[in-house]
């Protein structure tokens, strides 16, 4: 197969950047999108040019390293699929393909198609965990967890932290990412204990880092490669509201003492 590629090139964070046109030929339909880019890079290296930088690692759809808007869509045209699991058979022979990095203020470009997503780590550091140490833990079967809760927690925990939700959102909101973590832990008795504190701190941190607000367009759900649903956002909103009420109550109690 042959393709014309219009790829975003940007030397570093300070550079303005722009689209550059390349052509590639002799691509197998069974090649993955990255194997096609590998072939392009081999051509560029052969010609003494700088190869295109892009983030990728496991190439089996689980590590969440890969990103890319392909023809304007995060992770390309297939539903529930990361860029690394996209194959060239999903494109027409001779097609022109636009390839760009995530575009969002909280994810600045590092080079070409690579962005800095450490804002996600900061959100997790704000409370995306259960505060326990490695030791002195009671037997795992001490607390029974209803299977439906465990299954729903798993569905939320399947998030790979790739950032497609932010990339797809007209407001560049990280709400689905935060909601997935809040839901995962809120649905389990082990995570319930610090539920209120967690949701408050994570939402606060998301706001501080410059992500936008959620206006319920649900683009995030449509583009999420792990098909995480917006039901998690509803759950987070309920958690958040309850936490606010709880916090006020807490204040009143301490006043009355």
């Amino acid at each position, binding site marked *: 197969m042959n393709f014309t590629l219009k790829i975003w090139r940007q030397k*570093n964070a300070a550079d303005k950047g722009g689209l550059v046109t390349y052509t590639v030929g002799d691509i197998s339909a069974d090649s993955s999108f990255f194997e096609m880019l590998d072939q392009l890079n081999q051509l560029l290296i052969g010609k003494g040019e700088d*190869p295109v930088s892009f983030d990728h690692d496991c190439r089996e759809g*689980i*590590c969440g390293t890969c990103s890319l808007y392909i023809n304007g869509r995060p992770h390309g045209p297939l539903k529930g699929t990361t860029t690394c699991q996209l194959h060239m058979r999903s494109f027409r022979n001779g097609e022109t393909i636009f390839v760009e990095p995530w575009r969002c203020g909280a994810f600045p470009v590092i080079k070409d198609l690579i962005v800095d997503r450490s804002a996600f*780590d900061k959100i997790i550091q704000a409370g995306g965990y259960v505060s326990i*140490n490695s030791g002195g833990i009671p037997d795992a079967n001490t607390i029974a967890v209803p299977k439906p809760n465990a*299954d729903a927690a798993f569905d939320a925990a399947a998030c790979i932290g790739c950032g497609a939700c932010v990339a797809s959102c007209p407001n560049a909101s990280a709400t689905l990412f935060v909601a997935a973590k809040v839901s995962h832990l809120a649905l389990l008795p082990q995570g319930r204990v610090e539920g209120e504190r967690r949701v408050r701190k994570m939402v606060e941190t998301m706001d501080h880092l410059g992500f936008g607000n959620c206006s319920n367009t649900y683009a995030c759900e449509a583009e999420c490669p792990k098909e995480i649903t917006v039901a998690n956002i509803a759950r987070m909103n309920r958690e958040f509201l309850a936490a606010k009420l709880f916090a006020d109550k807490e204040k009143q109690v301490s006043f009355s003492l």
Partner: protein
Amino acid sequence: MINLNAGAPRGPLAEQWSSYKANCKLVNPNNKRKLDIIVVGTGLAGASAAATLGQLGYNVKSFCYQDTPRRAHSIAAQGGINAAKNYQNDGDNVFRLFYDTIKGGDYRARESNVYRLASISPEIIDLCVAQGVPFAREYGGLLANRSFGGTQVSRTFYARGQTGQQLLIGAYSALSRQIAEGTVKLYNRRDVLDIVVIDGKARGVIARNLVTGELERHSAHAVVLASGGYGNVFYLSTNAMGSNVTPAWSAYKKGALFANPCFTQIHPTCIPVHGEFQSKLTLMSESLRNDGRIWVPKEKEDAEQLRQKKIIPEQIHESKRDYYLERRYPAFGNLVPRDVASRAAKERCDEGYGVGTSGRAVFLDFSDSINRLGVEAISARYGNLFQMYERIVDDNPYQTPMMIYPAVHYTMGGLWVDYELMTTVPGLYSIGECNFSDHGANRLGASALMQGLADGYFVLPYTISAYLSNEIHTPAIQTTLPEFHSAIQGVSDRIDQLRNTKGKTSVDHFHKKLGKIMWEYCGMSRSEAGLQSALGMIGELKEEFISDVRVPGGMKEYNPELEKAWRVQDFIELGDLMVRDALQRKESCGGHFREESQTSDGEALRDDEKFAYVAAWQYKGNSAEPAMHREELRFDTVKPSQRSYK
């Protein structure tokens, strides 16, 4: 000859670890915060170790090459994690898990370490559940288990087909909490390129900031390597693209011994190679063999017709199919261990019975199970795997058999460590897949996750205090010391050399060439003649790389080609060591099949008389041959027997 003493406590196996813990020297909390520890890698072993050491109050510096610790390759593990919980009341216990691991490793692992691993396994599950890892559960709300990798008990805990992901997120969360509390400082997008040794002790690392290209000096009182395995020496493997041997290799060059490098695991159920530009291989969980039957055509003509796509597999009549695993191993059938299943597939394809366009594939057929249990039951068990297969191959496994072929998956070899997980360099530790310790010559399914977390959460945090208790009077190590200067100079010189070669050939070209040599001569089956010729080829490749590699881009910028060039150069040197190790081990054992050592019916033949030892290699300089040292293995508790699956 270096005396390799594991230093396991005396006394009965079952009491060694508790006696160690009872007598181990501790570090006072006031002193802990004055002690710095570097942890390289944030997979299950590295993240769990860094988090736990941070909880204890040490000053931890955590390094990863990925943009965030959550992406380390442990995330890709599918199947599950073993633990001797006996929740199923099916007769499991610590001894049985220990025994299965020693036997599965073909009697080439150390009894003391493996017993400790088995005894710690239940605690891992307790901790992970408390962290919020959403393991599979029964309707009663308690944890579910499955049988895995041909064991007779159900001791594997799992989270659908994403167990590694969920466990890693647990460890990453614990790590994030420590980062927030300030006990761990994260250095992401860093390649650790050298280990700094001062007065014989590991005291720091040289790292390259992958974004700015800056070379950085980091000092510590101890250094822990959790940088994973070296399967990418084969170019095509199930490892992530960035997985590399570099930190372990620099440790080797600084005096740490490298043990059993030739022990690699080839996993039988991977998606076959599609063409020359393939960049990596995808594993399909071993659990598929529970319900799938493996076959190739009985007639070579049929295989040829299939390769040319003139017929489809369903057209081959039942009587013309060779279910070769069921034929050769009636007792275990399709559930024989990984090494046996992989070799049998290679044997059929070598004989000309392979299918797929390349002829390097066999069928994994679910039609019998679908007829017996229904589509729904099969979809509940393997739905996500079938979907993944269809996405990659564009075939529907509900309608036509899957095609699979073995691929490099895990490396049992690694840095030699003692009972305390310390290498032969004082203060330098190695945990997880990066060390050699627990899996012998073959790893059992669902044991890698167990080992990574056992080392990181429960073993290293104790054993490192034995060393650090003697370091409490050592002030923070200064990075202005001459050893840091010379290390950083060495790194910078090598980078200049790579960039200034300005040859004609790209890094990938060399990596692919190395991969082909390793796969052909040091893969599933090895022979004296093949290994000898591989040694020559690798030597030539090494020279060719030095004189003809092309590394575009600058040093002080984001430059993935430069990262790859460094890693591939290390892989070429490692390849040489692996071949030497395979040459000296003239027996077949576990994943290492020596053609000269087989029974009359073609099964692997182990030689306990001559080879019941760990081969640990010492670096002797760039142009000198490495020296081999032996740690003799003693089996006081389990009597070695020849594995038989017939």
